[in-house]
Structures are given as structure tokens and as C-alpha cells.
């Protein structure tokens, strides 16, 4: 990947507010060495006191129905096999319950029994766990289990699935539908209109580290070693499922090989390990195979989105409609909040957003990097490009004309409250300048280099900023080392590093004297990593703890012989509800489309972001670049194929589920606009883990249109969708 450092990070660093010396510096990853040398242990790799047994999951070979008979005799007698667990002999667990929970929170903590009964709800659902002395023994034996099914007709084809329903709320507790003004009439009368339907595909997270766990019991207490984004969720889910007190569950997760939302809740690997370890009175480790992850570790639902934009001839939006239908599972509801950002992005007097669900016989969808914005912005920001084209207006100018603004104040059009800060225009202007937007031809298909068509596109980015209740403890040891302790996780984002920087700044200590300890549920509870709230939440708690510790120190002549400690915390402030908090950005992309083959390759991208104070420009850049690459994937290649007959995710490996490789990425530049959002949190920062993907795919798609004049509304834009329309 080409890398050019044109960011204004260095300027940002030098302009830090008083008291911030480490914050804002591009400090190298604290955990980098441990990771590249293999010293960092992941879920499957922890060394526990007793010899571990190995579990292998057998998955169902039908998509909907019932197990009529399961014969595990041969497997049980197979050499090296210790246990074969099926629904017939699995220990009792709590019931799964209704498809929806009483509160959005309970989705994360509800019991998730495994091998609970004979019902098959989705293809590859675990139907047995074979535990052996070795992984190989368990896997070989799993192959000899004989299963007879009663097959039911499943719904696997979204096109055939006409029946949709209105969920109670969307993910994260948003209203399902909103409306303002009179959309239908206003849209009908608008002089310029776009009415387009876009579809997005199932996608799979595919973190590098597969979902895996080791469970070890000591009496009635269990320790789970795993890779999770939020320890508290796993702890609550394990306790609830096994019907044991919360205090009896310890979760350990110091290093995580990526999560992207797929490690927010406990999956079958964890529960199966816990059950088997209890039966065998011996630690058991279970990992999903890459193939099993596609069905069992979450996916992004597919969506069908109708976007209607009505504008006057000057490009002022009169009506915005964003109506989404996405897939959910029959047995558990997940409503991706695909239309929610549309409520806050642009102003228009007449607005409607709507979420509907179609039930399929798959596993439930889960939170996948920027749930809502990622698929939703593909559609809405493509539609804005279509509108700009219809109006013959520059896409940036169109967006500027539709900034929500009332008497000079930037107001969230949906909630009617001010934005805490909103620098979208600055992102677009700065990005355009650095990208060389003026090189874009307003007329599509106009730039040709040999047998390639060249195009440029842009899109806006918006992503809400969250904060979650969190606590932290700091312990100053007599010899001057500061231990920072919390059950926060570092899923590869750089949490170890920024928490070190935060503690160093508050305590005015060198980073080398600070030891951040994460990923153990015995430490103070945090909101974990998810929704891009990690840095603000955990960071604020650490800031508070350090501030308290420092205050104690002021009254003392030195560190007392027994050391000193303090606890800190953060909750949502009143400000949080008084202001609409979002991070913003603008993406720019240049693509080349081969005239003969329709192959699309991204040559370069640039993203400009306003995300409050950047705590560490190096780790921030990594997050943003990663997100932008995900945008390329969503626009051009990522799709998990659900076989219409069997209900299996059929391209379930990394050879056939395509994500961008280095050669697909070209040059990526990022720039952070100087911004400090004092209403957001004590640092003035905003979340960035998901911001990079928001809108990135639309910029690529818009560049494809600009290159070819062909608008593909069915994502991903694979070459056969362009080919018939290219000149011969």
C-alpha cells in the first residue's frame, strides 16, 4: 500500500491544549512488539494449569428443520475422544427466549444456549461438540457422527420473501420510522427527483483471529479465555446461560485479533467450551473454523433500500426519503439501523425514514463495522451523486447547499438540537483541495487513458459519537510504576497505547512508567470496544481515576510505602442529550475501469475527517485507513452468498469471500481537520473506529459512475454489472 504522509497530524500535535503532551502524539503501539514476536496470547493460546482437551464443532447440514436421530456411537468410541455432546446429553441451560428482548441492552447479555434442542434454525448451527485429547482426534471423530433430519422448507431467498414486518425499534434503540412534514406530496411536487432502489449484500466480518475460547472450571467457578470486545457481555451471557452467579464467571481477553462487531456477544465456541469443561472437569478449548465463522459468528444483513430525494432547481432538498428492508433471522431479531443516519445528515422540510424486516432462516445478523451507516451510506450517498448529476451540480456544492443550518446554528434536522460540532463542509473543502477534485470531469466517461476509463467520486461521512459508562482503577506502586486497570479491550485499535498516553498526561509521568492492564473481568467494568466508543469511555474513566490519584498525591509528601490507588468513572453527561454528537468526513476516490473487461480498480483514495481531538494520529490513521479499505470491499467485492436451496453461506472461505488485498488499495491518504469537541468528553475527541467506512464505498461507486456513466445500484459492483453497458 502506497503511503504518503500528507496529514496535518503534526500540526495537530503541536497545537495541543495545555496539559496534553502525550495525547496527540503518534506514539508507537505499546503492544506491537508482543504481537509481532508472538508473546501476545490470544483466546486459543492461553496456557492453563491443566492439560487442555480440544473441542470440534459439528454443524447442521440443513437450513431449517429438526434432528430426528443422531448416532454418535462410533465417534464416542473413536480413539482419543473424551466426550461427544449433543442436544441429548448437553447440560441444562437457560431457555433462549423470544426473538426480541425487553431492552436493547439485553441483546448483549441474554442467555444463548447451545445444543438446547433438536431444532435446526440455520445451516451449520452447532449440533454436536466432540472433545478429544487432540484437535485431530476430535475432528476425525466428528466426521463419523450420523445424523438424520426432518427437513422443513426454509426461506433463503430475499426476492421470494415478500412478507415484511415492522420491528419495534432498530438496533441501538432507535425509532423504527420517522417522518416530518408531508413527504409524499412534497416529493411528488419536487421539480428534480431521484427515486432509486439500491441493494447491499450479506457481508461477513472475518477478523483474523477466529472465534475461540478456553474454559476452565475450579469448583463452581469458570474462567473463560477468549477474544471478545466486551468482557461484561460475555460474562453476563455465560452466567445467564449456565444459570450461575455473575461472580462465578471470569473472562480473560488481553489480546484480540480483530472483532469488527463480531465479538460483542458470546458465540457457540464459548458456551460449548464452558459446558464441556464442566462435564469433563478439565479445561477445554474450542475454535470455530473459518468456514464455521460465516454462519456462526455473525454477518451483516442484506438490505434493499429505496432512496427518494426531491429538490428544487438550485439543489436545495425539499424531501428526503430512505426506506429500508433488511434481513433478519426467524428466531432472533436484528434490525440494522440503516436509515438512522439519514435523519441527521441533510436538511429538508419533508422527511421520512423507515425500517422493515424480512425473516430468513439464517443465523441472526450482528453489528458489523458501522452498522447502519455502512450499507445506508452506500445508498444515500450514491443517490446524492445521482441528484448532483441530474442537477448538473458539483456533488460537494450540492451537499453544502443542504447543510442543516438555522440562523447560523447547525441543528440536527431530526432532533432539533444543535450539533456539538459539525465540520462536514470543511472536510469536503479540504479533502477536495488535497485530492485534486478539480481534475474530475463533470461529464461521465470523459477521461480515458489507453484502454482505461478514469473516474472520480466523493461522498460524505457521518457517524454518531457515543460514550458508555465505564470505570477504571489506577495503582501507583511505591517504586513509581503506575498500573492502569480496567476490563477494557484492545481489539487492535490501539487502546493500550492511548490509555498510556492519557495516564501519562494526567499524571505527568513518562509513558514507560505506565503499565496498562486490560482484558480481565476482575478489573473495573467498562463499556468495552464497540460503536467507536472505546477511547472516549475507557479514556475518560482513566482520566478521572488519574485526576483523583493526583489530587491525593498533592496532600502527601510522596508515594506512601504501600502505594496509592484511586478509582474513576464516566457516565453520559447531561450534555450528551443536549447536543447531537457526530463525527464527519469526506471521501474521495479515483478508479480505473478496464474498457475490455470491466474490471474496476481503485487507484487512490483520500479521506478528510473531523473527529474531534485525535488522541494518537498513528493509531487513528490505521483505523481510518482500515475503514476506507472496507469501503472498497463493500463497493466492489464483498458478498456472502446464501444458497437459495440449502440456506448455506456457500463461499465460506477467504479464497472465495473476497476482501481487498494490497493490490486493490492503491494509495490512501487521510487528513484530520483540527477540531476539539468539548461537549463530547474531557478530551474533546470523537470515535473513529467506524468513521472510515461510512461513505467510503459510495465514493468508489460514484467514481465508477463518473468513469463510465453507468450507475450500478446493486452492491457490490462486480464486473458483470458494468460489462453489458460498456462500449464494445
Amino acid at each position, binding site marked *: 500500500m502506497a503511503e504518503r504522509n500528507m496529514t496535518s497530524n503534526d500540526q495537530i500535535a503541536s497545537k495541543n491544549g495545555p496539559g496534553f503532551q502525550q495525547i496527540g502524539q503518534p506514539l508507537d503501539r505499546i503492544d506491537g512488539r508482543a504481537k509481532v514476536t508472538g508473546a501476545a496470547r490470544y483466546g486459543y493460546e492461553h496456557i492453563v494449569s491443566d492439560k487442555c482437551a480440544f473441542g470440534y464443532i459439528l454443524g447442521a*447440514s440443513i437450513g431449517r428443520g429438526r434432528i430426528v436421530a443422531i448416532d454418535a456411537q462410533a465417534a464416542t468410541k473413536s480413539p482419543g475422544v473424551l466426550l461427544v455432546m449433543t442436544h441429548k446429553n448437553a447440560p441444562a441451560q437457560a431457555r433462549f427466549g423470544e426473538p426480541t428482548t425487553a431492552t436493547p441492552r439485553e441483546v448483549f447479555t441474554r442467555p444463548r444456549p447451545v445444543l438446547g434442542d433438536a431444532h435446526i434454525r440455520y445451516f451449520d448451527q452447532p449440533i454436536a461438540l466432540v472433545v478429544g485429547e487432540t484437535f*485431530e482426534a476430535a*475432528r*476425525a471423530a466428528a*466426521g463419523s457422527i450420523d445424523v438424520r433430519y426432518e427437513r422443513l422448507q426454509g426461506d433463503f431467498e430475499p426476492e421470494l420473501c415478500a412478507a415484511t414486518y415492522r420491528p419495534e425499534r432498530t438496533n441501538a434503540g432507535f425509532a423504527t420510522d420517522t417522518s416530518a412534514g408531508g413527504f409524499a406530496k412534497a416529493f411528488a411536487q419536487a421539480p428534480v427527483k431521484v427515486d432509486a432502489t439500491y441493494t447491499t449484500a450479506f457481508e461477513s466480518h472475518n477478523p483474523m483471529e477466529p472465534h475461540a475460547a478456553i474454559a476452565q472450571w475450579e469448583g463452581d467457578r469458570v474462567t473463560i479465555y477468549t477474544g471478545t470486545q466486551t468482557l461484561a457481555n460475555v460474562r453476563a451471557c455465560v452466567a445467564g446461560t449456565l444459570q450461575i452467579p455473575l461472580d462465578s464467571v471470569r473472562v480473560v481477553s488481553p489480546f484480540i485479533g480483530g472483532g469488527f462487531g463480531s465479538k460483542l456477544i458470546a458465540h457457540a465456541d464459548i458456551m460449548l467450551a464452558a459446558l464441556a469443561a464442566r462435564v469433563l472437569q478439565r479445561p477445554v478449548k474450542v475454535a470455530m473454523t473459518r*468456514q464455521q465463522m460465516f454462519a456462526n459468528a455473525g454477518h451483516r444483513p442484506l438490505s434493499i433500500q429505496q432512496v427518494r430525494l426531491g429538490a428544487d432547481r438550485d439543489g436545495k432538498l425539499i424531501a428526503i426519503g430512505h426506506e429500508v428492508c433488511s434481513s433478519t433471522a426467524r428466531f432472533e431479531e436484528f434490525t440494522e439501523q440503516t436509515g438512522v443516519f439519514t435523519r441527521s445528515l441533510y436538511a429538508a422540510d419533508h422527511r421520512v425514514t423507515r425500517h422493515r424486516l424480512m425473516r430468513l432462516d439464517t443465523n441472526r445478523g450482528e453489528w458489523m463495522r458501522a452498522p447502519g451507516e455502512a450499507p445506508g451510506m452506500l445508498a444515500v450517498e450514491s443517490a446524492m451523486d445521482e441528484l448532483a448529476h441530474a442537477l448538473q451540480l458539483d456533488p460537494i456544492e450540492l451537499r453544502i447547499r443542504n447543510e442543516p443550518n438555522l440562523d447560523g446554528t447547525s441543528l440536527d434536522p431530526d432532533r432539533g438540537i444543535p450539533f456539538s460540532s459539525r465540520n462536514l463542509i470543511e472536510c469536503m473543502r479540504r479533502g477536495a483541495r488535497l485530492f485534486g477534485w478539480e481534475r474530475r470531469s463533470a461529464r461521465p466517461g470523459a477521461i480515458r487513458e489507453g*484502454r482505461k476509463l478514469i473516474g472520480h467520486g466523493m461522498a460524505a461521512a457521518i457517524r454518531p459519537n457515543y460514550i458508555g459508562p465505564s470505570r477504571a482503577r489506577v495503582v501507583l506502586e511505591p517504586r513509581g510504576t503506575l498500573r492502569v486497570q480496567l476490563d477494557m479491550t484492545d481489539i487492535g485499535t490501539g487502546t493500550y497505547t492511548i490509555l498510556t498516553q492519557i495516564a501519562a498526561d494526567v499524571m505527568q509521568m513518562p509513558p514507560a512508567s505506565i503499565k496498562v492492564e486490560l482484558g480481565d473481568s476482575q478489573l473495573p467494568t467498562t463499556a468495552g470496544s464497540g460503536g467507536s466508543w472505546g477511547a472516549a469511555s475507557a479514556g475518560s474513566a482513566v482520566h478521572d481515576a488519574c485526576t483523583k490519584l493526583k489530587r491525593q498525591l498533592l496532600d502527601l509528601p510522596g508515594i506512601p510505602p504501600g502505594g496509592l490507588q484511586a478509582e474513576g468513572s464516566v457516565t453520559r453527561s447531561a450534555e450528551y442529550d443536549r447536543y447531537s454528537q457526530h463525527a464527519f468526513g469526506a471521501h474521495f476516490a479515483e478508479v480505473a475501469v478496464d474498457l*475490455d*473487461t*470491466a*474490471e474496476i*480498480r481503485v487507484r487512490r483514495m483520500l479521506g478528510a475527517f473531523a473527529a474531534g481531538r485525535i488522541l494518537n494520529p498513528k493509531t487513528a490513521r490505521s483505523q481510518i485507513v482500515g475503514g476506507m479499505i472496507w469501503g472498497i470491499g463493500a463497493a*466492489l*467485492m464483498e458478498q456472502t*452468498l446464501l*444458497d*437459495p*436451496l*440449502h440456506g*448455506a453461506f*456457500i*463461499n*465460506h*472461505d477467504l*479464497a*472465495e469471500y*473476497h476482501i*481487498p*488485498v*494490497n*493490490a*486493490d488499495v492503491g494509495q490512501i491518504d487521510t487528513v484530520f481537520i483540527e477540531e476539539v469537541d468539548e461537549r463530547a468528553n474531557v478530551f474533546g475527541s470523537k470515535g473513529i473506529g467506524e468513521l472510515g467506512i461510512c461513505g467510503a464505498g459510495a465514493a468508489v461507486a460514484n467514481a465508477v459512475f463518473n468513469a463510465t456513466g453507468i450507475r450500478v445500484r446493486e452492491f457490490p459492483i*462486480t*464486473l*458483470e454489472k458494468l*460489462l*453489458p453497458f460498456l462500449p*464494445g
Partner: protein
Amino acid sequence: MKSFLYERATTTQQAVDALAKRLDAKLIAGGTNLLDLMKLEIEQPRHLIDVNSLPLSSIEPLPGGALRIGALVRNSDLAADSRIRREYPLLSQALLAGASGQIRNQATTAGNLLQRTRCYYFYDPRMPCNKRVPGSGCAALNGFNRIHAVLGASDHCIATHPSDMAVAMTALDARVETLSAAGARSFPIDQLYRPPGSTPHVETSLAQGEMITSVTLPPPPPGRQMYRKVRDRASFAFALVAVATIIDADSVAVRNARIAFGGVAPKPWRGIVAEQALLSARPSRDALEQIAEIALADARSQKHNAFKVPLAKRTLMHAIAESTRDG
């Protein structure tokens, strides 16, 4: 994975003897395909014969300007070989367009020829698949068949052969050399692969116990060589369509033409009729279109792969146009 006996052969004869002894024996070379398939229990050999210590890793010139490539020459080494790059650039290009650097370092010439299809359904033992379990049906016919064959398929199997290297070798008229209890033999690479017909599980013409020892390339034919692989991402993806061409022409006449396709058929697909048509044509735009029509005349597509037909035509026309361009 089923447990198996492992044996390392030290001579080629020993490998062939061991292979002949048991029906459930298999050779393992780089293992980049076989091991994946064994883990999924798609291949279940009970006896593995490791051929990696055999003296089959060299590229040797033969009298008359031909070249012999040992069965164990790694894909990376073959692509980097100076004679290959100079005289058979098509082969080098095809190899480098395949897989990833790590896989090419491990993958061997014989293993590459004998790698199995990437049909999704072949890779999931729970799916009906005539190639994996004869008579069980073909899930691809009514499933996702975007990556499947448009030429040479049957009602029993529409899988493609995934190799890039084999397509280049087919255009180069390579020959395969083998050893078995019956002795050594040599035959054109085109005869290595069998049409699927009603027995898609029988993929090659190799007899039980027959081992590939080398591939020979005749002296390079005159003309420009080109390998164009069309794929879903810039690297590390199998071909949707690949076209290998060797064309000796100027603006007046075509003196020699070879055309082979990858990604469209159960085997590397030689376009003999199109080659002949090209010989008698002046390379004009109309003629190119006609030749592309001829090359794909027998194409039969499925629900999701119809695009391969125009794609193969366009890619071929582009390759011919490039090869006949002056300068």
C-alpha cells in the same frame, strides 16, 4: 481429516511402486491443495507418499530447443527462470497471475496441473456434488454458478479447472511425462484432462498408480505471447476468464496463432477453430469479432455466468488486437 500413513519416497520408482500398491494412496507435493481438501474430508487418502525429496526439481534444456520442467519445480521458481521469462513469457505471466507469493513458493508443477476445482459446492461436503460423491447431484446447477463453466461442461458437472499455469502450457503445446508400473509415457497436455460427461469425478487420463514426472515445452513458437487474466480483485483470486494467446502477425497477415482460455471450462480450453480462422483473416475489427464468435460458438451458460461469454470474447479480441499492434 482422516488419519493416514505417511511415507517419504526417495526415488521416483519407489514413489510409483508405493502408489500402485494401494488404491487409497495419494502423492503429496506442495500440499497447498491436497491438505485443504483432506482437512475438509473431501480427499481421504489413507496413505500419503511425499514426493518432495525426489530429484524432479530442475528445468533442463532438451536437444532441439525444447525444455523439460521437473514435476517438483515450484511455481515461483518456474516463473522466475530466465529461459522461461525470455522464451515463454506467457507461462511466467500466467504463473505470476496465480495464487499468492507464499502459495507459489510451495506449489509444484505437477500439483498445479492436478489441483481440483474451486466450485463452492465441491468444497462443502454437505452439498450434493457429483464430482465429490458420484450420483449425488450437482448443487451448482440451481445454486450460485457465477464462477462456473460455459464451455465443455455437462449436465452432471459445470465446474471449471482453476489453473492459470495449465492454460499457458496448453497454448504452448506442452507434453506431460509420466511414470507408472507400465513404464514411462508422454502425451499432449490437452489429453491430460477428461471431459466431465457423466463421470465428473474422473478428471484425468492418468491411470491408477501413474505419476507425473515432468512437463516438456517444445521450442517456443514464433509470435507475441500474452496472458490476460480477468478476476474479481487485483490479486489472489481465481480467473473469471483468462486468455492465453501466441500470435505471429503483422498488419497484413497472421502467420501463427494459438488461443487458450482459462476459467470457462472443465479444462484449459484450446480454441483450435478460432486459431484457424485467425490464420486466414486480416486482423480487422470485424474479423476479430467473428473470431471471438467462433471461439465461443459452443458456449452454454447458466443463471449467473452468462457474462463469461461476452467477457471471454472481449478479452480475446483485446489480446489479439494487442498482439497484432505494430511496434
